């Protein structure tokens, strides 16, 4: 029953992308192909589970007892940034298969949009979001809520399913974009606007789940 609630909530009702608007950058940027969307989704899921597993004890057993809750933003963000680096190194060294499937998306988890922003100014288009994403917000958003969860197991489990919820949304959007990118639309709507319209319809569909 509780696990069911976590799953429904994480995958659909509270879907990070479509109802909490976290991880929009990669959602719009890395969703041109289903394979890259899936790789990105899995990378995010992996980082989310690991950071939940690490940050939960840091918060509960270190920060909270010492009355240092106000350092949580600082600590969480540093932990995520370093964990992503470590995870990338470990994957590259020990599991080339997994690395090529999702490891190459790991830098994108922390690559900042600055690069994206500059690239766009230079090319003067708003559609060149192909190469960069910024998903720290998905993972960070999960961590900000984590200390309210009761048990370690629940925290990690919800991390897993929120990650899968993100994967679901981004893969679905990629599938839709295969069609929409071929459409002839008004010039002003090309790129982000038409992708966002697709997201709009997805959000409508997912909204139904909040009524459960």
């Amino acid at each position, binding site marked *: 029953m509780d696990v069911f609630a976590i799953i429904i909530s994480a995958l659909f009702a509270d879907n990070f992308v479509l109802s909490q608007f976290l991880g929009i950058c990669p959602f719009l940027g890395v969703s041109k192909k289903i394979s890259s969307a899936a790789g990105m989704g899995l990378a995010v899921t992996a980082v989310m589970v690991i950071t939940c597993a690490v940050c939960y004890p840091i918060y509960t057993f270190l920060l909270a007892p010492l009355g240092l809750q106000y350092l949580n933003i600082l600590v969480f963000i540093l932990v995520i940034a370093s964990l992503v680096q470590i995870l990338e190194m470990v994957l590259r060294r020990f599991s080339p298969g997994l690395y090529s499937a999702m490891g190459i998306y790991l830098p994108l988890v922390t690559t900042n949009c600055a690069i994206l922003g500059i690239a766009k100014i230079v090319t003067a288009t708003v559609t060149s979001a192909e190469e960069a994403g910024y998903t720290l917000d998905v993972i960070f958003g999960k961590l900000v809520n984590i200390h309210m969860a009761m048990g370690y197991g629940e925290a990690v489990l919800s991390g897993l399913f929120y990650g899968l919820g993100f994967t679901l949304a981004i893969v679905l959007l990629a599938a839709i974009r295969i069609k929409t990118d071929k459409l002839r639309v008004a010039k*002003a709507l090309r790129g982000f606007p038409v992708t966002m319209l697709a997201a709009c319809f997805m959000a*409508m569909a997912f909204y139904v789940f909040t009524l459960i």
Partner: protein
Amino acid sequence: MKLQRFKEIALDGTVRQNPTFRLVLGTCPTLALTTAALDCLGMGAAVIFVLVFSNLIISLLRNVIPDKVRIPCFIVIIATFVTIVSMFIEAFAYSLYESLGMYLALIVVNCIILGRAESFASHNPVLDSVCDGLFMGIGFTLSLTLMGIVREVLGKGMLFGVTLWNFKIEFFAKPAGAFLTYALFIAIFNVCYNAVERKLKHKAAHKAAEAERSAESAVAATGEEA
């Protein structure tokens, strides 16, 4: 700082590189908080504070921070100011704190801030960086509030928390409405921007041609004189 440079920065931040509509950065609060225009102003103020101070400190330290660890350093500095601003809002504007919720802490991962730190403050003088932070923040706040007004009026029949009428299209207050409004805003902004850009270019070309002509005539004149 020269006036021309100041104008450049101001125009870049608010229009040419408008973070919300041109760069499509910081999308998370843009989509999440635009159901109420007042929250948008509060969020904007918080972002301006963080942007200005993080740009200030990073610009001051730009020669001290080694390139290898610049991103972690920026993150620490940004996180500090985000924590301060969220403490401040919790202490003195509690209702705003409640309505911003988790999105306040999420300023730390807002692309705009790290983006400005990385692309501007880390290699520009202090005053320029502060101005850049200020105008990027203002650009963000204006776009957010504009979307907030539209969504609040359509979705709730209210404006800045004051009920205008009973008519409302709840769709606009829901997540799907956020995506739709944002998409339309980008499209409209792009159309206007491109139109103005074209006109300016045309004007500039015209001016240049005129200048050339006058230069030519001047040359001709001097030639005649000579």
